[in-house]
């Protein structure tokens, strides 16, 4: 059927009419010729032809897009229906909007974490290489020597192996105060292999980054260029200072590129070997086999699989073990795919993606609740419209047309809800994107709105419409003329009590699941907040700085900190002050070092274990109030040139010196085997990462003996009173000593605990789960209330009869309550069982036990109590039914 036909169908129809008229005339004439009277002739002609209007209609239909036309009619009709009951429409649309909005927001997060692009060429062909000592965890760091071996010996599977190392450096236009930039030192062919184009100027050449100090060039990221250079189109060729070293800007990266580890987005890129002059790294340190600072990426050659690449990496790892017996004794290599939500590391506990999917599941449950409520509303409405449908069906409307009409109405509702929901979802995803991650580092999570999200939302809306609409539609379409007439117009859809009760049971159960999960997360948060940390976070102010960023060399940085501590300690209001490299739960520098302990044999199959440590000044333990268990604190005498010393944690003593005689024992860090450390003290355990695991071994070494390459430090000050008030004075002091030195991450130790590694993740998860739990609760209560109210209204005359026959108010209350309690009770029990199963899937995310009795008991009681209340209102209404009035109706 052609469109032309469709558009000219009116004209066509007139022509058919004339044709049929001609036929009739001919037949009439023939009949007259056969001797009939004119009237009889015409009558016979009509009888023989059939109804001309029907014939024309049939041809008209052949010329139309029937379904499209009907659809238009259905939509118009549906709109009219909804306009006639604005209250119903508003409630249904708002309910669906909530459900769809939650899903849109959560999906935008999942999309941002799992499905959005890294904006590099063929991103599934780029891999990151990881290594591990047998039995230990995969880790991403490599030494320069290892990079060179990998680069040279994998050319049959990789078209390139590249490396990068992160840094934090002060970047300034000449004369200005530098700001701290998150930098990335990359091998010259990095961008070629990763597959990024410049937005302005050029990226690096393959030869750059080989010779230390030879290539003073810098490439800026697009956002950094926009923010700090105001998008200056003439930026290429400009001179900047990086940690005091003059450099030339040669290019700006592609607009969308955010780095290969999207969590952290480097702001300025430099050739790898420039790390030597810029960060004052001695050449020997730069090339040291134990200095593992590089992350390695490789691009698969065409038609090479990841399995083939891993096989080659295995061969290379064996070669490495032979070539570098000390550094790479039992090394294993493997490759890992890149994806957006993966932050640094290959940690299998890094469950961001799973968490996001889990929340999508919870959001789905909220949507289910919303759908059930709207379906219930529609069912009630269906009873009202029963007569309309029966009449339409009696007038010859096909069952399929009625179903389609009902579905059109539901989908229209869902789409209106969808539009509102997408608006809500946009707002929600904006809130999610703007969560303050508690760090000044350029962390980038973009949960924006793209066509993935739009397609998802529309799909959700349409599905919701179908789910919501199918039950009432089918029920109506089954409506039977005789039954309706027999029931005296009371309708048959009202007969579906069982089904409606089941829906509400599902609602109560889902609400139960949502609330229990929310409860488990909330309890985990509070338990973590009150966890024994091993230090006292009250009244401590922290601020981070790196004199290296303004060109200080290491001895000068050491002297700077020495003087800074002297000045701060003398200030009024300061109890104690210290510096440390690592702040508990911080995101910077949580590495450790493999250690060798005299007399300690690692279990078979495992090589030397990595132990985390902190670089501290004197008074650290009194500032954080970590009690010493044995021995002494570091003193002024623990300096360069004196014997190297360490303070170890009790957990470390337990592991390496189980007889408790740690003081005076020696161990070495594998990065510095020339300087064995003597244990001079034992400190109580303190939590540096996580709230759940047993305390891992930990040790401390004095900054004064390890200042080389460690100029990034945090000043920690214990104050007499409110620590926040001290911040301006302290910053002024630093500014007096080094006017250009940027100071960042100024916060109290208590605030510092709210990082993604600390409490922040719990907080976000608990808040999200709490929101969904609340939504679920509200929707379920509305469901219970709505259904019981409806039941009461349907049974009014029955109740009237009972009361007239002598039933007491209490009996009526009991009848209604009994029905309500059955629904709620079954829902509660089913919900309990389901959440018990689900919670055990979560055990790695929560601190409390997945079968935490307090949560289960609390939530069950609360939900039961609220449900009782929801039953009470309709039950009360039933109780006060006036028998006479009810009977008269």
């Amino acid at each position, binding site marked *: 059927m052609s469109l032309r036909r469709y558009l000219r169908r009116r004209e066509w129809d007139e022509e058919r009419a004339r044709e049929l008229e*001609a*036929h009739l005339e001919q*037949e009439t*004439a023939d009949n007259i010729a056969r001797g009939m009277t004119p009237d009889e002739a015409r009558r016979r002609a009509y009888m023989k*032809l*059939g109804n001309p209007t029907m014939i024309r209609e049939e*041809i008209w239909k*052949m010329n139309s897009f029937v379904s499209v036309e009907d659809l238009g009619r259905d939509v118009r009709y549906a709109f009219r229906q909804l306009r006639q009951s604005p209250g119903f429409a508003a409630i249904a649309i708002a309910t669906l909007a909530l459900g769809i909005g939650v899903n849109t927001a959560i999906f935008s997060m999942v999309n941002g974490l799992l499905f959005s692009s890294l904006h590099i060429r063929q991103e599934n062909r780029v891999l990151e290489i990881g290594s591990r000592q047998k039995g230990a965890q995969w880790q991403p760091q490599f030494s320069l020597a290892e990079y060179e071996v990998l680069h040279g010996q994998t050319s049959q599977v990789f078209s390139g192996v590249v490396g990068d190392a992160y840094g934090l450096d002060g970047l300034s236009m000449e004369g200005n105060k530098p700001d701290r930039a998150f930098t990335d030192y990359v091998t010259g062919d990095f961008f070629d292999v990763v597959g990024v184009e410049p937005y302005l100027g050029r990226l690096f050449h393959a030869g750059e980054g080989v010779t230390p100090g030879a290539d003073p060039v810098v490439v800026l990221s697009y956002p950094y260029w926009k923010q700090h250079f105001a998008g200056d189109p003439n930026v290429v060729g400009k001179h900047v200072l990086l940690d005091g070293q003059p450099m030339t800007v040669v290019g700006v990266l592609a607009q969308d590129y955010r780095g290969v580890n999207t969590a952290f987005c480097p702001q300025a890129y430099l050739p790898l070997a420039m790390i030597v002059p810029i960060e004052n790294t001695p050449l020997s340190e730069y090339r040291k086999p134990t200095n593992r600072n590089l992350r390695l990426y490789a691009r698969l050659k065409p038609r090479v699989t990841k399995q083939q690449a891993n096989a080659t990496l295995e061969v290379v790892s064996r070669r490495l073990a032979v070539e570098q017996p000390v550094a790479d004794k039992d090394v294993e290599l493997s490759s890992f795919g890149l994806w957006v939500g993966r932050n640094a590391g290959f940690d299998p506990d890094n469950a961001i993606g799973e968490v996001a999917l889990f929340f999508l599941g919870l959001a789905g449950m909220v949507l289910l609740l919303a759908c059930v409520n709207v379906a219930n509303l529609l069912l009630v409405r269906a009873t009202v419209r029963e007569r309309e449908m029966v009449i339409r069906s009696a007038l010859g409307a096909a069952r399929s047309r009625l179903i389609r009409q009902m579905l059109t109405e539901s989908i229209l509702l869902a789409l209106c809800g969808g539009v509102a929901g997408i608006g809500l979802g946009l707002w929600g995803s904006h809130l999610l994107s703007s969560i303050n991650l508690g760090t000044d580092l350029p962390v980038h999570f973009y949960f924006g709105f793209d066509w993935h999200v739009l397609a998802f939302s529309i799909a959700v809306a349409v599905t919701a419409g179908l789910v919501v609409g199918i039950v009432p539609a089918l029920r109506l379409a089954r409506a039977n003329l005789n039954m309706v007439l027999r029931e005296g117009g009371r309708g048959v859809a009202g007969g579906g009590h069982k089904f409606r009760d089941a829906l509400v049971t599902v609602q109560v159960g889902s609400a139960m699941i949502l609330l229990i999960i929310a409860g488990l997360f909330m309890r985990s948060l509070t338990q973590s907040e009150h966890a024994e940390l091993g230090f006292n976070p009250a009244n401590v102010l922290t601020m981070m700085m790196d004199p290296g960023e303004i060109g200080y060399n290491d001895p000068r940085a050491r002297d700077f900190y020495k003087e800074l501590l002297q000045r701060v300690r003398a200030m009024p209001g300061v109890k104690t002050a210290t510096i440390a490299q690592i702040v508990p739960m911080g995101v910077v520098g949580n590495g450790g070092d493999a250690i060798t302990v005299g007399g300690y044999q690692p279990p078979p199959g495992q090589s030397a274990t990595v132990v985390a440590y902190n670089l501290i000044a004197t008074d650290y333990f009194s500032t954080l109030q970590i009690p010493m268990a044995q021995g002494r604190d570091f003193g002024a005498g623990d300096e360069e040139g004196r014997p190297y010393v360490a303070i170890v944690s009790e957990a470390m003593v337990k592991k390496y010196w189980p007889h408790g005689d740690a003081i005076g024992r020696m161990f070495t860090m594998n990065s510095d085997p020339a300087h064995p450390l003597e244990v001079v003290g034992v400190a109580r355990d303190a939590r540096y990462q996580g709230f759940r695991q047993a305390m891992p071994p930990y040790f401390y070494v004095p900054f004064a003996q390890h200042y080389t390459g460690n100029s990034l430090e945090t000043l920690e000050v214990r104050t007499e009173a409110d620590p926040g008030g001290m911040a301006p004075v302290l910053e002024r002091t630093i500014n007096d000593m080094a006017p250009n030195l940027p100071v960042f991450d100024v916060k109290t130790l208590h605030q510092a605990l709210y990082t993604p590694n600390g409490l922040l993740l719990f907080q976000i998860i608990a808040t999200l789960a709490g929101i969904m739990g609340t939504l679920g609760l509200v929707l379920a209560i509305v469901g219970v209330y709505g259904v019981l109210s409806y039941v009461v209204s349907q049974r009014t005359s029955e109740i009237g009869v009972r009361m007239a026959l002598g039933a007491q108010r209490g009996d009526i209350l009991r009848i209604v309550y009994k029905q309500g309690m059955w629904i709620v009770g079954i829902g509660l029990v089913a919900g309990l069982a389901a959440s018990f199963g689900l919670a055990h899937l979560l055990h790695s995310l929560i601190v409390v036990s997945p079968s935490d009795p307090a949560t289960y008991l609390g939530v069950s009681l609360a939900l039961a109590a609220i449900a009782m209340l929801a039953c009470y209102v309709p039950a009360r209404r039933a109780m006060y039914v006036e028998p006479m009035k009810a009977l008269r109706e």
Partner: protein
Amino acid sequence: MGSKKEQELLLGTLDMLILQTLLMGPAHGHTIAHVIEHTSDDVLQIEQGSLYPALHRLEDREWVSSYWGASENNRKARFYKLTAAGRRQLRAETHRWKSMVEAIGRVLGNAGRVLE
């Protein structure tokens, strides 16, 4: 489902009869209806009305074309004419029909023998 197939078969038959009629030359709807009735010795009584949707369908498939002209008793009438495609279609249909009839005949013949 079954009834729909049946309907399709009947429609196909009507189409074939119309095309067959037009083989003798252009004709208008009234003539076609009478020719079909007479040539089949009034065995196939068609409701004349169903002819017009069928004609419309055939024209839609470009098996027939139509024009306004004057009928034998000088009335204005719409004439239908077989197109080349219609001719091909008729040949194919006729062939298909004949082979089907033969097949049915064979089956019935066998059945007859078995029954004897």
